[in-house]
């Protein structure tokens, strides 16, 4: 089932086309990573999905409800820099949000505990750190128990501990609701997302399940790292392997040998026996990272064709 259905979404700011005919489907229960460089149109997309802005053309449907139709879709939204009423404390703020939603018995303390703010519940939000505000922002988005959570760069400005805390919460949400989150931190998207979309200059350049994306762009490359005392042997090995029919290219870089292979299965069988007697540090088949794919796609290259 589709949680988010976007058709022909276009947004112009005068002559600038911030979004240009985006079509996108996000399946229910997915954690969808929306990747793109700064200025690609990620925040504009989220503003259109929340109804804060109106599209020049196209539609956004969330759980079957068209955004801007007068009926409110069941969304929770965390802007990139959530700004609160500094004179409220966290519990008061969540109470206010719950009252807006008409919740009779809102799980305020449970939500605060989930985001790790229960101990600071009575502290005025004006005195919160950036990370605490981000967690409270997540709490206010989660409190009304939405079926779709929209997060705009939720971890970009946080320190590693803060990022981990937010990503762990997102991981825990898997299968309980649909999460659509924009980011330019590719490692985070690779870690928690199961579906990826990449936007660049207002165009959706790619959408696929994360694993399928990584498999599709996996490069047939093996890396061999050896200890320093084995470096002299590595040159001879490179020459020997380069003559094998299953190897298309070898690159020697200090204590690292890279092999681009023609047949991955054959390489898996033949490589390890060829390394016998070498003081090995690491042997690994190098898969494509999301970063490789992202950089290549946003530079207009096909990552599968990228050379080592």
């Amino acid at each position, binding site marked *: 089932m589709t949680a988010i259905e976007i058709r022909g979404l276009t947004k112009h700011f005068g002559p600038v086309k911030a979004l240009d005919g985006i079509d996108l489907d996000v399946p229910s229960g997915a954690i969808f990573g929306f990747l793109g460089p700064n200025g690609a149109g990620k925040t504009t997309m989220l503003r259109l999905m929340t109804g804060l802005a109106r599209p020049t053309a196209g539609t956004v449907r969330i759980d079957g409800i068209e955004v801007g139709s007068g009926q409110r879709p069941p969304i929770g939204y965390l802007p990139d820099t959530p*700004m609160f009423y500094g004179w409220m404390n966290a519990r008061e703020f969540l109470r206010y949000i719950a009252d807006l939603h008409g919740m009779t018995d809102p799980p305020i303390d449970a939500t605060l505990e989930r985001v790790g703010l229960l101990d600071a519940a009575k502290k005025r939000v004006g005195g919160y750190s950036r990370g605490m505000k981000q967690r409270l922002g997540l709490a206010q988005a989660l409190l009304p128990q939405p079926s779709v959570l929209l997060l705009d760069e939720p971890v970009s400005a946080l320190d590693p501990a803060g990022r981990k805390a937010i990503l762990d919460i997102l991981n825990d949400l898997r299968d309980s609701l649909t999460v659509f989150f924009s980011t330019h931190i590719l490692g985070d998207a690779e870690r928690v997302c199961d579906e990826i979309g990449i936007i660049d200059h207002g165009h959706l350049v790619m959408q696929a399940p994360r694993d399928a994306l990584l498999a599709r762009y996996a490069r047939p490359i093996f890396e061999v790292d050896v200890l320093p005392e084995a470096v002299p042997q590595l040159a001879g090995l490179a020459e020997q392997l380069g003559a094998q029919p299953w190897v298309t290219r070898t690159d020697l870089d200090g204590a690292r040998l890279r092999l681009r292979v023609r047949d991955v299965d054959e390489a898996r069988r033949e490589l390890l026996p060829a390394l016998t007697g070498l003081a090995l540090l690491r042997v690994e088949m190098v898969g494509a990272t999301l970063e490789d794919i992202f950089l290549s796609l946003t530079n207009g290259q096909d990552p599968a064709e990228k050379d080592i």
Partner: protein
Amino acid sequence: MRVFRVQLRKELLELWRTRKVLIVVVVLVAFGLMSPLFAKLTPELLKSMGDQQNIQIIITEPTTKDATDQFVKNTTQFGLLLGVLMSFGTIVGERERGQATLIFPHPLPRETFVLAKFAALAILFGLGLLLGALADFLYTVLLFEAPPIGGFVALVAFIYLWLLCLIALSLLASALGRSMTSAGGLAFAFLLVVLVASSLTRYAPGKITDWGHTLAVGANGPAQWGALIITLALTALAVGGSAYALRKQEID
């Protein structure tokens, strides 16, 4: 209606926590107290200055009317200034600070947001003016004679409607302005236009305080029904216009 109550409670709590209640009440009560006091002391002050310089200054004995004159002057000048200052940043401020981005995706209609802000300011200034008027009335009774109760109540009610009109216009400026600076400029431009109009035509909103003054001092003067209707209509239009402007806007 439920969302309006929630939002109004939030607005009132904000006015309380940010000490705006204290500021408005203290200022309006202070002017309420000072008005009869100034009316009483000003002639005595002038007389003592004349005595020191061997000049004989003939000043008529101050009366309740002088106290009422002072009250009208003080509340319509400082009250309206306070009203504009407290109102012009209230919508644009939430947009500029980014709080609107967090709140509007929740089920809070923008019309309700505007109405709650207007209602909260109306309650705040209603309370401040009521306490200020009470202080003025009691002090006037203490120092002079009591003004005609009906006329005084009418005066306070008309000053209140005049204040509400200016608050509504400031809210409109706040909804139209793209920044605090532009909203402030627009609010004071609206104020200037209304004040100039009040000196040019008897149908301008400011004229209802003249009517109230006439009633409060027990004098004969024309009823300003036209000005009253214009004041109420302008207030409603400004609040409605604020809601419409905010609904049409995209939130950053």
